[in-house]
């Protein structure tokens, strides 16, 4: 049965599911019901080393770069409206394949074209992130974002990280007003 985390909380994936080999990180949100342009939320993942940065642009997995160089991380593709039950976008991760010098997998969600569409997270409903055991389909942990993010347009949803030989999950839910570009720069991606 999935454990529900609160913001700031963390959980050992390795302890909760000792046979864990691969995970599906599922992100979902409610499609827009009010008038206006669709909410196009984009999931992305930064493969981050001990210095808090990516090794290179290939470590930034998003709708224009669906697979990591090592092949251990795969983005399942862009969902532009939030339509559909369950996960709207997903990332598949084979844990043993994550390079040893990568310490954290930072999962981010951003709103596409937020500035032009005048959208922010405060307007998005029912956003969640969940981790599923890819082999058994069992949901391990879930984090529901129920707060109003008002001016933010980019957010670190969660982190999957190594800690003392285990894989752990941390519920973050912290936003950035300056969008995916600013977030990417913070992690060392060359966004020129």
């Amino acid at each position, binding site marked *: 049965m999935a454990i529900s985390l609160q913001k*700031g*909380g963390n959980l050992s994936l390795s302890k909760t599911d000792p046979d864990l080999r691969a995970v599906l990180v599922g992100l979902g949100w409610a499609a827009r019901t009010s008038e206006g342009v669709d909410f196009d939320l984009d999931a992305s993942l930064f493969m981050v080393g001990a210095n808090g940065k990516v090794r290179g642009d290939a470590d930034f997995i998003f709708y224009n770069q669906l697979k990591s160089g090592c092949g251990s991380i795969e983005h399942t593709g862009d969902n532009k409206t939030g339509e559909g039950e369950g996960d709207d976008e997903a990332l598949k991760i084979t844990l043993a394949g994550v390079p040893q010098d990568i310490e954290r997998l930072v999962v981010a969600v951003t709103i596409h074209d937020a500035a032009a569409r005048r959208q922010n997270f405060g307007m998005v409903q029912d956003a969640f992130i969940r981790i599923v055991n890819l082999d058994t389909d069992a949901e391990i942990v879930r984090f529901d974002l129920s707060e109003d993010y008002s001016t933010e347009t980019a957010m670190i949803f969660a982190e999957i990280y190594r800690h003392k030989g285990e894989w752990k999950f941390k519920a973050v839910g912290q936003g950035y007003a300056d969008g995916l570009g600013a977030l990417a720069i913070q992690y060392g991606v060359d966004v020129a």
Partner: protein
Amino acid sequence: MAISLQKGGNVNLSKEAPGLKKVVIGLGWDPRASDGAAFDLDGSAFLQKADGKVRGDSDFIFYNNLKSTDGSVIHAGDNTTGGGDGDDEKLTIDLAAVPAEIDKVSFCVTIHEAEQRKQNFGMVAKAYIRCLNGDGNAELARYDLSEDGSTETAMIFGELYRAGSEWKFRAIGQGFKGGLGPLARSFGVNA
């Protein structure tokens, strides 16, 4: 050798550092990179009699009361963002100067306005509290607040207590609900 403490862990400082005279409690964290109110962590100390209570409010050392009356405990000042390298807040304890009727000094860390700002230790990057030998700065014990304090907003890190003629340190790592005010009152302070 630094001991990384889990919740409830225990360290006999006198064994780790025989002849301990000065202790420094260091508190550090990274400034907030994401949007929202800054993370303002506050270190504090409570000088207690044998009954676990302060003699008076002046035994509560914190950002608004930086020095104990006898000078045995000194707080180096409030850091409201976590900016700067190394320890962001420091409490220095001169063991020989602690009055005879004081049996114990407890060390705590709280998040300023945690409830209003909706913050907890897990949201803060690289937050820790540690205990150093004041002579030579060898780290004796450390608690990883970001990782192990996660959903807490206040924590009793540990206590220095008399054992005969020696001082020992007991790591507590216990969360406390309610913030600095209620925490201080639990030690007998009129907050």
